[in-house]
């Protein structure tokens, strides 16, 4: 059974002579939180806009629920809740009035939909404060309330914690997690904050300069970037063969001709060194490393790193 909710095939966006997004293949699976991680200007918002058909796709295809959004808006949009860039509302209206407008436009039949959405994000119902007087954090909360107002299956949230204080960030994070775990929502969330994505996402896509550098599950990434033995040797191909033959492990990755990462840290480093030297392989260094995800992202993004 195909459980992919969002699938992009080689989507590209070109503005004039600048390629904002380059051949991105993205797969968001049902019931999971997909974190799109990248620096400011990496192309995260453009990808989300292309998925939602808010901007044209220069080439490639983007399907949501197995359909191209363009031409199927009436079937697809009611199943999506989204915040793209900043949450847009009418500044002369209160939060409740703003949500009532969107509830009416969506034909929301649930009588307490607005009140419940506001309660979920911790904003007061029927408050007299108008939107233009809201703090950035309140605006973000109202944006999230609007996105969940019609109980959509898929949430597309573009940097939803922007402007929130640390407690607010934690609250929104917990709330997004709950939406996924308890209500089975599929969530595509973008952020430039690594810690936020690493705490939330089940799957992760790393984007840099419009290119999706890696798409993987968070579990795999964590495994790849936890503890490992760094071996710097004269010949990694030969070293790999010895690891397989003598230590019966395939849990390694060859980085280049001289560097190898061995993830099975239960192995005896001294024994490995001895075995390698007996096979005429020079061991330049061997050490136990503990990479953080940040180190990994720095490497993947060519040393630029992510905030």
């Amino acid at each position, binding site marked *: 059974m195909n459980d992919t909710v969002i699938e992009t095939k080689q989507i590209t966006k070109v503005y004039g002579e600048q390629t904002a997004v380059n051949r991105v293949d993205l797969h968001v699976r049902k019931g999971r939180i997909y974190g799109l991680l990248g620096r400011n200007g990496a192309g995260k918002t453009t990808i989300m806009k292309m998925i939602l058909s808010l901007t044209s796709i220069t080439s490639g295809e983007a399907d949501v629920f197995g359909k191209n959004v363009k031409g199927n808006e009436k079937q697809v949009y009611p199943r999506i809740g989204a915040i793209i860039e900043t949450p847009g509302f009418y500044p002369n209206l209160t939060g409740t*009035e703003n949500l009532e407008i969107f509830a009416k436009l969506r034909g929301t039949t649930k009588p307490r939909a607005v009140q419940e959405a506001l309660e979920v994000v911790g904003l007061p119902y029927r408050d007299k404060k108008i939107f233009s007087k809201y703090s950035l954090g309140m605006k973000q909360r109202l944006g999230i309330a609007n996105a969940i107002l019609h109980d959509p299956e898929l949430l597309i949230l573009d940097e939803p914690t922007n402007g929130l204080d640390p407690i607010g960030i934690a609250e929104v994070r917990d709330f997004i997690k709950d939406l996924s775990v308890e209500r089975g929502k599929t969530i595509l969330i973008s952020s430039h904050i690594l810690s936020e994505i690493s705490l939330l996402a089940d799957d992760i896509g790393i984007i840099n300069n419009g290119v999706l550098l890696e798409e993987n599950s968070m579990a795999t990434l964590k495994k790849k970037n936890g503890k490992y033995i760094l071996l710097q040797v004269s010949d990694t191909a030969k070293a790999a063969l010895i690891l397989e033959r003598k230590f019966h492990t395939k849990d390694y990755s060859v980085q280049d001709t001289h560097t190898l990462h061995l993830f099975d840290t239960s192995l005896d480093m001294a024994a490995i060194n001895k075995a390698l030297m007996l096979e005429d392989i020079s061991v330049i260094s061997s050490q136990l490393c503990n990479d953080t995800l940040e180190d990994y992202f720095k490497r993947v993004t060519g040393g630029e790193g992510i905030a």
Partner: protein
Amino acid sequence: MGTIIQTELQKLKRRKLVWGILVLTTLIALFAFERACSISRKSAIMDSFGDYYTLAFKMLATIYLPIVLGIFATSLFFDEYKNDTLKSLLIVPISKAQLYFSKIAAVLFMSPGLCLYTFILTVFGGVIAGGFPDINGQTVLQAFALFVEGGILVPLAMLPVIFLAVLGRKDYILPIAATLLYLVPVILIPSYLMGIHPLASAINIYRVTSPAAAQMVKNLTQGANITANVTNSLINMILIGCISAALSVIALQRQNN
């Protein structure tokens, strides 16, 4: 579509622009009232109720309303971009055509609303100022017809400017400058533009509403011989209005969000 129009009107709540328009409209009615009070009924320019209500209507419908509707329509489109609400509306989903026609509907509510408001103030003003021998059911009805006509025809005539408001989506200056440029020739040479320029065509249509309206148009055109046919003027307005609406929807659909 009804819901979209309803929400369009809801969005106007607490809008300072709307309050400003109401205040200015009141001032126009008050100015006409002041004229009615200070000019003797022996003077040919204020010796009938027709003189009074056409004075109020002339100020309202020939200069003020086109400018106000131009600004109002521009703000309706511009604010969706400024407030970043367009994206949220599109993913409801609201189509660009629906969005356009809901804004036009708001303009169409605003325009007759202002005209009827001025009409009511004018009738009360006529009664309070007193001395009009012809103020009766028939002349009040004629005044009502003229104000309603203006309320419908002026926004129809402004559709080309609204098209520019759609084009200059992130800019107030272009449509407002266009409104003024659109208005100037009608003020200067209305009789030559009847059947060509929608606002001048509207003036041509007013003249068949009542004898007082005919006199008002005669004064506006400085007694020029009007050759333009009223039906042709109406066709001109509808045609240009439809073309402008179609172009606006196409322009909106081609715009990136």
